[in-house]
């Protein structure tokens, strides 16, 4: 088939069974947009900012497990999208970003809207391509999707000069991807797995350390089976929320900087860490030399570079966590006695009793944690939850009753404010039957507020719940704790009228001060089924606790903070 480069892009997207592309047109990508106009196979959603297009594609990818697709133009269009690439890279989200580039003859001349896009995207993508000949496009696009979704998933960027999209060449998408230099290991080494099972059977206080790789590998069901069968308790990383149900008796909670007392103590007391798809991030480990000091480490990860990067693994197992669990389960069934951990369970139960995750209600002001819990009580499994970044994000990770994988979409590694709303649009597009909630802050929401327009145009009724404390709350918390209350540039007392703002775009807005008002607003927003902002006035000086100060040991938690 002899077609243009632009037509090839469309044909490749169809062949990859893409159902939605998030994007924003511009000069260098116009040939492709002209072909988008002519086709009916997939939907194009015009976000109101390129960054939002990439975040929406991330949200869609996180919710579905499929490769998200975003399309933007050269120069500023591309640079606006970079934050999304970096975000997807840090959180291992499968994504293909297609960007326009100035024509080949102009590359290197500082042409209008020219930037060295592959030079910029190189350190924040799994791989990238500058296409110099339309004849290469079918192979490159097929490789891009393949690389994005296999191994440790990640974003792939394809930069296409305008003349290449006009060039006619042969399109053949049937060839299998053949990459001599890229062959991810997916099966675990049998001998290592046997040794790991021996270690588990011998351990007295083993602990499952569950990471986001489980969600990526669609392995949550197997993790549930493994923990049920062995009765080994579990902690989840921020990225792994929803792997176990919130009410699973074996789930302790989230661990790390804002993890629960019991989760962090369990990690400090365990004699065997069973790491599954987790990467020992600094927000999880605290001071490395004190982390899980009494334990041997089993580390299962698809990315060999993640193993023994920060914490030395005694039992390194490279492989897809789903495959590895399939190999482990029959062995564990034979060897691991589920009754042997009773005293360990008691220890953990005591930790839980001593300092459960909690907050105290006081005065008339709503507590932000209450709002999160309340959304959980009212919507629970019926909602998909996205967040922005900051205090609200941590409270959500701590207090939302997650029941399933892919229910939780948040920017973990990069910590991108402005992620939540566009990601929630992508989540909504992926799962129209559930309510898509973006729990956000009064700082974060303004970082992609223009997406109200996208939500209205494409009927993606995301409900934004602002936990409004008139502060950049997390930075304010650090200033209170570590900077002697010098609240430098974090006071957000000057604010828009969020109700009118939502209405101005054609959505609905609510200002909420009481529990009753909150219930009514959420109910109304769900019924109205249009994009909403629920602006919840919460206690201004609430802190996220427990807290392990940066660089501190996991077992040295700040459990409460009293005004001095």
């Amino acid at each position, binding site marked *: 088939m002899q077609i243009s480069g632009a037509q090839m892009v469309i044909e490749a997207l169809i062949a990859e069974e893409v159902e939605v592309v998030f994007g924003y047109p511009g000069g260098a990508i116009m040939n492709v947009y002209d072909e988008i106009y002519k086709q009916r196979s997939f939907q194009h959603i015009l976000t109101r900012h390129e960054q939002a297009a990439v975040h929406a594609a991330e949200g869609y990818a996180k919710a579905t497990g499929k490769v998200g697709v975003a399309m933007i133009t050269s120069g500023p269009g591309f640079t606006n999208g970079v934050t999304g690439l970096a975000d997807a890279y840090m959180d291992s989200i499968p994504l293909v970003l297609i960007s326009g580039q100035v024509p080949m003859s102009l590359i290197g001349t500082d042409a209008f809207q020219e930037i060295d896009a*592959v*030079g910029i995207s*190189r*350190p924040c993508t*799994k*791989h990238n391509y*500058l296409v*110099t000949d339309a004849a290469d496009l079918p192979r490159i696009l097929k490789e891009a999707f393949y*690389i994005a979704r296999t191994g440790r998933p990640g974003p792939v960027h394809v930069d296409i000069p305008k003349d290449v999209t006009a060039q006619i060449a042969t399109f053949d998408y049937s060839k299998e991807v053949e*990459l*001599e*230099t*890229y062959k991810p290991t997916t099966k675990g080494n049998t001998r290592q797995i046997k040794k790991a099972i021996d270690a588990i059977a011998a351990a007295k206080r083993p602990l499952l350390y569950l990471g986001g790789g489980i969600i990526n590998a669609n392995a949550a069901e197997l993790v549930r089976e493994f923990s049920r069968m062995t009765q080994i308790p579990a902690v989840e990383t921020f990225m792994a929320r929803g792997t176990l149900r919130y009410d699973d008796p074996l789930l302790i909670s989230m661990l790390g900087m804002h993890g629960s007392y019991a989760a962090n103590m369990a990690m400090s007391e365990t004699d065997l860490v069973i790491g599954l798809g987790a990467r020992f991030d600094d927000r999880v480990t605290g001071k490395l030399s004190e982390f899980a000091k009494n334990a041997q480490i089993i580390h299962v990860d698809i*990315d*060999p*570079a993640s193993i*023994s*990067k920060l914490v030395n693994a005694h039992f390194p197992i490279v492989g897809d966590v789903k495959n590895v669990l399939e190999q482990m389960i029959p062995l564990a069934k034979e060897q691991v006695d589920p009754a042997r951990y009773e005293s360990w369970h008691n220890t953990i139960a005591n930790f839980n009793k001593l300092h459960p995750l909690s907050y105290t209600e006081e005065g008339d002001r709503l507590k932000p944690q209450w709002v999160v819990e309340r959304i959980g009580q009212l919507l629970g499994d019926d909602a998909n939850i996205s967040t922005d970044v900051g205090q609200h994000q941590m409270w959500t990770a701590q207090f939302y009753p997650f029941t399933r994988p892919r229910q939780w979409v948040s920017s973990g590694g990069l910590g991108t404010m402005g992620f939540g709303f566009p990601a929630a649009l992508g989540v909504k597009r992926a799962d129209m039957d559930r309510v898509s909630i973006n729990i956000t802050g009064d700082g974060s929401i303004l970082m992609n507020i223009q997406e109200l327009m996208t939500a209205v145009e494409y009927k993606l009724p995301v409900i934004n719940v602002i936990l409004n404390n008139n502060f950049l709350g997390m930075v304010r918390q650090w200033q209170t704790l570590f900077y002697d209350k010098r609240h430098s540039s974090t006071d957000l007392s000057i604010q828009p009228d969020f109700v009118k703002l939502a209405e101005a775009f054609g959505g609905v807005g609510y200002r909420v001060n009481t529990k009753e008002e909150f219930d009514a607003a959420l109910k109304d927003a769900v019924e109205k089924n249009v994009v909403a902002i629920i602006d919840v006035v919460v206690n201004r000086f609430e802190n996220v606790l427990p807290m392990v100060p940066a660089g501190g040991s996991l077992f040295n938690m700040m459990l409460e903070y009293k005004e001095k």
Partner: protein
Amino acid sequence: MMEQTERRVISVIVMNEASVLSRIAGLFSGRGYNIESLTVAPIPESKYSRITIVTAGSVRVVEQITKQLHKLIPVLRVYEHADLVETEMALVKIPMNESLGDIEALTHAYNGRIVNVGSDTMIVMISDEPMRVNHFLEAIKRFHPKEIVRSGSVALER
């Protein structure tokens, strides 16, 4: 607890394609690894290039470097050499008013020779183990070299 930093030679076999060198160099700078020298040239009659990198780091750091290099899509193989033959070349430009005989004798001792003689300057070339290249460059100082260029190491496993 300081980990021992060692000089290491790493060979990377990569697809001979555009921007592969920037991926490698970018990985080193982005992750804070140090490059002492780097050489690259195509492997004859193949679609690959060989990059030889001299770096320094603890065992753990070098292991990370190796793994991170492996993660790059166009990287076929990474060798972290233990038992190797390593050679480096140096060119030195020396004013003509120095003693030709002394210079020639010195370069001989380091597998070298005079490769060019002009009206004002001459150029000598040596090729030897990097440590011996250091020695040579120390010794040649007394002939007042005007310019020195080192090639960086190339290495093969024994």
